[in-house]
């Protein structure tokens, strides 16, 4: 008999399963649950993008593409990054099309981090950075961002986290789950801290299209001095509502990208061909569709923030992504307890902030990837839940 506890990779077996998963499993067994849990758009992929995918299949475009991706797609990505974020990346050697932003994150960490290197990860943030760092042999160093700083990384926090083993800084903005963004001057302040170091940056900008502030999204690499040390990650899932197509990309200096490409080449070979053809259409002709979705998200965002504040859960204005991250501290409950009791008593599913790091304690994540009517009903039930607590 094989003793599996002894034979499997120790780093893998020590990784804890995602905290979000647990809530999903409970919610899935209950009838009549109204969820604010999912992190993917409710919109269908715009029709012309689906059609482009179908056309490519009908035309028999079902073979591998080059490792980096279809050349016309690389050119469109290059144009798009310039047009939207003022970034210049050469389609020949600075862009790799990946299986979602997730693969790009993994490949970027593996391409940069050696055994024992430290990776600075701001939290609360998306759940993948810590395990991927460990799998690459790196050591996660967590920055617990604070509500009073709008969950931004401050230069002081960054400075305190840096050691001589620091290799990589992750910047997950616009942020899932907090909705925080980093303005140009915030990023410039971080540059001052690291400008004399060799610290690289993985800037996960998958929500770049979904910001609601006065200024458009500030790409990390667009801040002076940052381009040479930054890998920018983006993709099609969120902005174009293409989660299931599994398509993202990484852009960066060719010296980094040529190494990242090796990992992609041997592990993945190439991103799905159908999705790549569809993505060309997305970048070429879908600005209007993205604008319509953005407007809709903005209306829901305002409804949700106003609703939370009205029922007594302090909620800062999320400036990006599609989540609200209200505080539940006034209830005196822990995030997990709050979510569990809310789920059992009112059948509303939200995600405890602790699923995104210890600093998420006292908060919950509510997604507004739902219709206004759905959000209104969920808020109504949450209001009842809170007033029953007070009795």
């Amino acid at each position, binding site marked *: 008999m094989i003793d599996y506890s002894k034979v499997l990779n120790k780093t893998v077996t020590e990784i804890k399963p*995602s905290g*979000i*998963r647990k*809530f*999903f499993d409970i*919610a*899935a067994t209950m009838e009549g649950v109204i*969820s604010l*849990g*999912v*992190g*993917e758009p*409710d919109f269908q992929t715009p029709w012309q993008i689906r059609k482009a995918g179908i056309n490519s299949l009908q035309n028999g475009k079902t073979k591998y593409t080059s490792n980096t991706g279809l050349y016309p797609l690389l050119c469109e990505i290059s144009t798009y990054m310039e047009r939207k974020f003022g970034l210049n990346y050469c389609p020949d050697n600075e862009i790799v099309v990946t299986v979602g932003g997730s693969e790009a994150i993994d490949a970027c960490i593996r391409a940069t981090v050696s055994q024992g290197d430290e990776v600075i990860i701001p939290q609360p943030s*998306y*759940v993948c950075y810590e395990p991927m760092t460990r799998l690459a042999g790196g050591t996660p160093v967590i920055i617990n961002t604070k509500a009073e700083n709008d969950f931004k990384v401050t230069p002081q926090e960054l400075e305190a986290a840096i050691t001589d083993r620091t290799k990589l800084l992750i910047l997950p903005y616009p942020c*899932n789950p907090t909705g925080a963004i980093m303005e140009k001057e915030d990023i410039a302040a971080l540059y001052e801290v690291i400008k004399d170091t060799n610290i690289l940056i993985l800037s996960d900008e998958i929500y770049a299209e979904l910001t609601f502030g006065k200024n458009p999204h500030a790409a990390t690499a667009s801040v002076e001095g940052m381009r040479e040390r930054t890998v920018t990650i983006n993709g099609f899932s969120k902005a174009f509502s293409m989660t299931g197509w599994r398509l993202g990309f990484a852009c960066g200096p060719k010296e980094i990208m040529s190494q990242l490409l090796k990992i992609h080449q041997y592990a993945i070979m190439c991103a799905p061909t159908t999705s790549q053809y569809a993505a060309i259409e997305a970048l070429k002709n879908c600005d209007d569709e993205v604008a319509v979705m953005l407007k809709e998200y903005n*209306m*829901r965002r*305002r*409804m949700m923030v*106003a609703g939370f504040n009205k029922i007594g859960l302090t909620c800062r204005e999320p400036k990006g992504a599609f989540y609200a991250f209200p505080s539940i501290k006034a209830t005196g409950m822990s995030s997990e307890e709050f979510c569990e009791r809310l789920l059992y008593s009112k059948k509303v599913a939200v*995600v405890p902030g602790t699923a995104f790091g210890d600093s998420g304690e006292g908060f919950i994540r509510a997604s507004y*990837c739902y219709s*206004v*009517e759905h959000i*209104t009903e969920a808020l109504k039930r949450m209001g009842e839940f809170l007033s029953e607590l007070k009795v």
Partner: protein
Amino acid sequence: MKYEILKLLARNARYTTEEIATMLAITEAEVTSSIKELEKDGLLRGYKALVDWDKLDGAYVSAIIELNVVPKAGLGFEEVAKKIMKYPEVESVYLMSGVYDLNVVVKGKTLKDIAWFVAKELATIDSVTSTTTHFVMRRYKEMDVELVSMDEDDRGQLWI
């Protein structure tokens, strides 16, 4: 902003003033006064429920009638269209481009009611030269709303 309010009300006429104000980041007073003006100007014509009558057995049947009409000098189709719209059986009247002139949606209790209405009322109007009646067999979607819902929320396999 008025256009935005109209779009929201067209989607759901029961949004409250407060909800509309929140969604559009304007004051409730602005919403109230805009709606009043829209009503006064005749842009906002009503707030009606969207009913799936098919769920109620025998509630009513409807048909689309294509009418060919001889237009009157100086009046065109105006006179006959206005005459037809006055019948309580008539739900809507459209002037069409293409092979026929007026599209009339008629409702009745039974198929026979409609057949009689077409034969006795519409077909006998002087300027009407022909009628073609198409009975509605099943409603799949009305006013942007899917009545036979086939799309379920299939998300939630992943909570990222």
